[in-house]
């Protein structure tokens, strides 16, 4: 195709998608930055430029720190466990064993359910006294507990549920990776008399490293983006003990109607996501070099 026409056609084909991407990704990113520098407007006092004052207020906001800490604990609680379980699941169902199709299905099914439905099911497990968990404890003569109402257990309860939801999703990537390993490796390990654990630790796990990095990045992203369950389970409570950053942004924007503070918090989330994007870039880069 002739030179200049190529540029015109290229841009014309891109235009419909570009308009929407700019409108709902690039423009709002910039607008969020701008909004975070303005004060909250009201009927009598219009919004005005206040520089970094929103950020100073945020640093003084104990809820902000609590929410950020919760996000950190939530990530630390869900990611290593679900990744370890995902590897275990993939290893278990990677060989011929009775009912393999059903086993894979059982592990993967929570992935296909909406988080809101999962929360509905688990809400009943956790509800005090009448809930399934307390009923099971009761059989063993143990006392019931208000799992979601106690600030000490609420985050743990949500972490367990999230691990259940996510492990099967990560499993499929490990399954795909395991299928690319040559079977001779295991044969050789058997002949050498290596224990299965040794074979896994020294051979399989290092070879799964690229998959683990990919899964880790996804898991970290999910831990910041996934807040649906809070709407059903706790509404961030009790006393913000289970509140996460994106849910706190939602509360500020749509419950307290402070769009400027919500924008300030969104900037923090954007910075965190940018750091992860760079990390992913770095990891993917390394993966190419070392192959």
């Amino acid at each position, binding site marked *: 195709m002739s030179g200049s026409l190529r540029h015109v056609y290229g841009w014309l084909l891109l235009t419909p998608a570009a308009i*929407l991407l700019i*409108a709902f*990704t690039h423009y709002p990113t910039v607008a969020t930055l701008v909004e975070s520098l303005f004060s909250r407007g009201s009927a009598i006092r219009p919004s005005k430029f206040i520089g970094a004052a929103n950020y100073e207020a945020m640093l003084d906001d104990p809820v902000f720190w609590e929410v950020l800490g919760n996000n950190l604990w939530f990530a630390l609680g869900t990611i290593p466990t679900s990744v370890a379980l995902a590897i275990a699941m993939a290893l278990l169902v990677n060989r011929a064993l009775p009912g393999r199709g*059903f086993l894979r299905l059982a592990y993967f099914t*929570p992935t296909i359910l909406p988080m*809101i439905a999962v929360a509905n099911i688990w809400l*009943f497990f956790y509800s005090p006294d009448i809930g399934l968990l307390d009923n099971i404890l009761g059989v063993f003569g143990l006392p019931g507990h208000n799992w979601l109402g106690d600030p000490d257990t609420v985050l743990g309860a949500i972490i367990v549920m999230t691990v259940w939801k996510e492990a099967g*999703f990560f499993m499929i990537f490990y399954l795909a990776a395991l299928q690319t390993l040559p079977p001779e490796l295991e044969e050789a390990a058997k002949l050498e008399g290596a224990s299965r654990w040794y074979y896994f630790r020294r051979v399989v796990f290092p070879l799964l490293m690229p998959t683990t990095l990919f899964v880790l990045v996804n898991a970290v992203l999910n831990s910041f983006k996934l807040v649906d369950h809070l709407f059903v389970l706790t509404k961030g409570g009790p006393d913000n003990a289970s509140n996460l950053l994106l849910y706190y942004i939602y509360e500020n924007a*749509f419950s307290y109607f402070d769009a400027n503070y919500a*924008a300030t918090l969104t900037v923090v989330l954007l910075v965190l996501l940018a750091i992860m994007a760079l990390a992913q870039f770095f990891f993917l880069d390394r993966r190419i070099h070392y192959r």
Partner: protein
Amino acid sequence: MSSLAISPNRWSIVEALETAAAWLLAIIWIAPLLYAFWAAFHPSEYAVHFNLFAPLTLDNFREALSQAPFLRYGFNTFILVTMLLVAQFVLCTLAAYAFARFEFRGSNIAFALVLVQLMITPEILIVENYSTLVELGLVDTITGIGLPYMASAFGIFLLRQTFKSTPKELEDAARLEGCGLFGVLWRVYVPLARPTYLAYGLVSISHHWNNFLWPLIVSNSVETRPLTVGLGIFGAPESGVDWSIISAATLLSVAPLLLAFLLFQRQFIQSFMYSGIK
């Protein structure tokens, strides 16, 4: 030497143990969902009393349907997902075609800017995107729920990869036959990318069927509310709704997707796998 003699035996014992572990884990994993089925199909007094002879009933479903318009919610979700899929296919195909076959000026920068959306998804920017919808007058419309997701960086990325791997000779042959710009796209690139469309389509359907936060913010009437939002406001524990009825409502909401998944497991799992590996 002795290790050689013992190890095959030892491995087989370990394998038996592993099979048992795999089944135990699977039973634990499927139990919450099975429990939801149990609660939904039995009268509420059996919600925590497991008895093989407990009477089966459909009353919980009838009750859930009478308390909230789940059929309407389901219809809304269906319209939303269908509209999104068609729009995504069209927009992403055109953009991916541009990136794959037209080395236009600034295409590298433009592609990098597209990829930003992989990280900054529209629900991160709820505050600003909501004001944009207000200005467009699209609050509380199904179009408004779908609009931010129609140009999907993920779809553009996947299709670009696929189009790039299509042999150039096929395009040249089609041109000799008299195909124009869109003729080549429609007759060569799109048909050869069918597996990518299937994979992307299944991932997109699952994602938007289950999406909650953005639809919650945008919709506020029965006519626009998708299933997830309807379910979210239905199960408020303060209202003291019966567990069995909530379970029935939950199953109603997930049934279409779950059924599709059970029927086409292979395709679903392969699609998720494929879209993750890229």
